[in-house]
Structure formats: structure tokens, C-alpha cells
């Protein structure tokens, strides 16, 4: 933060700004708070008095949470499990495979690798809707339509940005380090994992954060690829509950929404520094 004090009157304007921003910050958090409040209220109370705090009549305790666990004939924890599985496996797979690919592309520099690089970069500007129909059919044919195999699809569709970010960083690493390793008799595999990969750490974190946020929150890709009667991720489950016809159980939905954002907020608060850095790095990709 820059310190630009030194002019009279700035101190008072700073105090005013702090107060104004405090109010805005509270307003910013209000939607989350109202989800918490409503997850403790009865359905009738949510519809008639959305913004009221629960009172004696409308307070439901944890009943909405208990109901939410098996809501829509699908155990909520199962969807949490699938979401975790898909996100973790996809992120690890993307980090390992694309960093290797980016190193290969930058160091080999042959025509073929240049063409591959161009294709990866090109894929960054293609929206998912362009490939969605054919991709879901391909996934069905190749049996990539389960939570255990869908990470391959994520690796394929998400490779562009990751390869792009990794190559940008690899190019800035001086070649001499790897040459020294090679002269000392270190093969490419060992050079990569013991010399190059540790140097890639900042980019690994940035890419990891971006991929985790993408996969965890993704709705359309798993919705089209997975068999949603059997496998649901959290976004699919919530959309299914709200999108299905008939009366909507608001209380239970709010309980589920709260349970699905709590892990995200914990993740955010613990790795905030890396998340903000990673997102900024991803944005400036150009």
C-alpha cells in the first residue's frame, strides 16, 4: 500500500473512507448472512419474511440441514465426495501433465512442438458451447463419463491456459541450470522433477488455484458428461433440486447452499494470498 499522507485533510478523508468501506463491506457480506439466517427458518417464513431473523415460530434449528442431507433422493455428502474427487484428481493431473508438456514445448522448439503450442493457445479462446455436444458424445464413447475418468476431459479442455502459463514461466528460466544438471549426468526426467519443477512453484500455485476454482464450480461440463442420476457434483445437485418441478424446499436448499460455500470460504481464507495472486496471473494472460 502506498503511503501518501503528508497533506492536511487527508487523514479525515481517510477516516471517512474507512467508515464508508466498512458499511459497503458489511453490505457485501449480507447475502451470505441471509443464506445462513434462512437456512435456519421454516419454508413459510422464508417466503413471507425473507430478511427477518428467525423467531420462536419460524426457527427450525438444524432441521433444514438434516432434511437437506437426503434431499432430492440423493445423499448430499455423495455429491460433496464426487466434487472433491473430481476437483483434486483433475487439478493434480493438469498440474503434472501440462507442466511437463510446457517444458517439452519450450525446450524442444521443433516445428511440431510449435504447432502443438499454437493449438493449445488457440483452445483458450474457444468457448465450451462450441464443443459441448461432440465432447459429451466422445466422452460417452470412450467411457470417460464417470467421476473417476472425467479428469481426462478436464485435462484436455483445460490444457490450453495451463500450458500457456507454464511455458511463459519456463522461458524465463535460464538454460544454464538445466545444462549443468545434464553435464552432471542427470537425465531429462530427473532434471524435470528435481530441478525444473521446484522452480515452477509460483506458477504451479497460480495454475492450481485457477483449475481448482474452475473445476469445483463447473456446472455444464459434468452435467453433460456424467450420468446425473448416479453421479452429481454439488452444482449439479443444487441445480437439480431447484430446477425440478413441484414445490421447492427453500429451507433445505439454503442449508445445502451454505454447506457448499463454507468449504470454499475456508479454502479462501487459508490460501487467500495465493488465490488472489493466481487469479491476477490468470487474468493478465492476454
Amino acid at each position, binding site marked *: 500500500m502506498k503511503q501518501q499522507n503528508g497533506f492536511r485533510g487527508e487523514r479525515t478523508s481517510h477516516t471517512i473512507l474507512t467508515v464508508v468501506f466498512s458499511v459497503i463491506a458489511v453490505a457485501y457480506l449480507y447475502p451470505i448472512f441471509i443464506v445462513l439466517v434462512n437456512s435456519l427458518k421454516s419454508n413459510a417464513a422464508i417466503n413471507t419474511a425473507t430478511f427477518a431473523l428467525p423467531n420462536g415460530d419460524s426457527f427450525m434449528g438444524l432441521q433444514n440441514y438434516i432434511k437437506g442431507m437426503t434431499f432430492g433422493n440423493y445423499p448430499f455428502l455423495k455429491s460433496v465426495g464426487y466434487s472433491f474427487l473430481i476437483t483434486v484428481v483433475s487439478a493434480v493431473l493438469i498440474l503434472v501433465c501440462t507442466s511437463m508438456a510446457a517444458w517439452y514445448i519450450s525446450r524442444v522448439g521443433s516445428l511440431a512442438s510449435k504447432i502443438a503450442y499454437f493449438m493449445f493457445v488457440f483452445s483458450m479462446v474457444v468457448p465450451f458451447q462450441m464443443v459441448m455436444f461432440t465432447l459429451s458424445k466422445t466422452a460417452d464413447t470412450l467411457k470417460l463419463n464417470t467421476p473417476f475418468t472425467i479428469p481426462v476431459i478436464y485435462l484436455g479442455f483445460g490444457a490450453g491456459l495451463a500450458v500457456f502459463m507454464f511455458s511463459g514461466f519456463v522461458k524465463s528460466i535460464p538454460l544454464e541450470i538445466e545444462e549443468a544438471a*545434464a553435464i552432471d549426468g542427470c537425465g531429462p526426467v530427473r532434471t524435470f522433477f528435481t530441478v525444473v519443477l521446484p522452480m515452477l512453484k509460483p506458477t504451479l500455485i497460480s495454475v492450481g488455484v485457477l483449475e481448482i476454482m474452475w473445476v469445483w464450480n463447473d456446472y455444464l461440463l459434468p452435467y453433460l458428461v456424467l450420468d446425473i442420476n448416479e453421479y452429481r457434483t454439488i452444482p449439479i445437485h443444487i441445480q437439480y433440486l431447484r430446477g425440478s418441478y413441484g414445490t421447492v424446499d427453500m429451507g433445505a436448499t439454503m442449508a445445502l447452499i451454505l454447506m457448499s460455500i463454507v468449504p470454499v470460504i475456508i479454502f479462501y481464507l487459508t490460501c487467500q494470498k495465493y488465490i488472489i495472486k493466481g487469479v491476477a496471473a490468470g487474468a493478465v494472460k492476454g
Partner: protein
Amino acid sequence: MKVRRVKNDGAALNSKLIRRPIQRWFWLFLLPTFASFCIGFVYPFLKGLFLSFCKFKTTSKWTWIGLKNYGTIFRDASFLHAFWYTALFAVVSLVIINVLAFAVAYCLTKGIKGSNLFRTVFFMPNLIGGIVLGYIWLMIFDGILSHYNTAVVLQTKYGFWGLVILMCWQQIGYMMIIYIAGLQAVPEDMLEAAKIDGASSWKTLWHITIPNVMPSITICTFLSLTNSFKLYDQNLALTNGSPFKTLADGSVIKTTEMLALNIVNSNTSNTRGPGQAKAVVFFILVAAIGLIQLTASRNKEVQQ
């Protein structure tokens, strides 16, 4: 790379030490990513492009019909409506989000107390997925509108402004981070010189700060454009296109349906051909925005 250009010996050494050995491990380093990339992107992309010229219900049964699908979609009132609706939304949200995000970033780099805390709070909504965001705001909007005996899904303008508010809530923090990075890179001595010369804060902002953060402004402008065009989850969760309007010729327009949602909704067995053609047009649109951005930021780099 540098070594190679300097002298020939270096190139030979580099080739022998680095290049050849890596190339021998092609199957480990490049193959897994490239094979998945072909499955997850190259093949679906090419097949999708091809199918946009065909009449088909499944990927294996198709008949070539040339440009007919493209003719169909440009007479499709719902697609044209979705396009203009998306364009309007993109412009409105672009202006609002960027002005507010810049203002917030500007204040937060002035060294006020609690800047870091505010930054944390404003960025937080970015981590919540679109579907969940949509339902949180649907509840809030309906909670307010129920006092007037109406709901978000009943009027186009509610759906439009609701989505704008939602996107502001989500995106301001994101753009703010980029603007903060830009503002922190403004040379301190320039600002000091302006102060000594007696420039007012407005003049300093217009003539020194804004020209210096132009790269960030370019990035944020294009980011919010592409975000708006690709917007799907939030649109689906908040209104899913409601309210519907029936035209004189009997066709139905979903008045708050944006491009991405319109394309996904065309993915039913009878409209797959036109749906794929829409996706191609959509791709060209998004790619064009991306390419303009790329050239814009390249030019900036050269100048520096």
C-alpha cells in the same frame, strides 16, 4: 534459446544436452497432455465445426446440407434476441463493473485503514460458483419483490438488472485486484512531481494515474466483455430465460435468455444442426474479442 543465437557451438551443445534427451521422452512429457487435448478439444472442435454444416441427430448419422443451418439461425428470432440482449448486458455491466472496481481500487491504494480486509471481502464472491450465486440472489430479489406482489421471473427488466447486480457483486472484486496491481505500478515520482507542481487530485487522476493504468483497463474491459458473452450458470439459475413472450408467428422468445443459454437450449434432438451453427457463430464472436484483446495488449507491450 539465448545460447543458440550467440554462437554455433552453443547450439550443438544445447541440442545434445537438452533437446535430444528430452525428445526421447516425448511419450512421457508431451503425449499424455496432447492425447487428452485431442480427446477433450481437437476432435470435438473439428467434428463440431463439420456438423454445423450437416443435418444430424446423433454424431454418427448426418447428411451434408451446406450453409442451411446458418441461414436458419439468422432467421431465428430467439437467437437474434439473445444476441442483442447479451450485447446490451455486456455493455451495461462492462461500464458499471469497471467504473466501480476502479473506484474501489483507487481508494484502497490510498493507504486507508483496513484496506487488506476490504480487499478480502470484495474478492470473496468470486469463489462461489455461478449456480449457487444465482440461487442466493434469486432468493434476495424475490424477497424484496414479493412485497410488491411480483417476482424476478415475471418481468424482463427485473431479470436484466438482477443479473447486472449479481455480476457486479461477483466481478467487482476480481477487476479490483487487477486495478490494484496496475495502480501500485504507477511511478511514485510522477505522482510526487504532480503534487509539487500543485496539480489537483482530479488532474493527477486524469493525466497521470489513468494513462499509467491503461494496460489494466484494457485487460478488465475485455475480461468483462468475454465474461458477459460466455455467461451461462448465473443466467440459468436466476431466470432461465423467463419471462417468455409469444410472437405473432407463434414462435416463443425467452426474453432474458443470453447467447450461451440459448445455444445450450438448442441442444435438443430436432434443433441440433442449427444449435451447432449457433455455437460456431458464438465461437467466432468470442474468439474475435479475444484476438482484439491480444493485439491490444501486444501493442502496449511494444510501447513500454
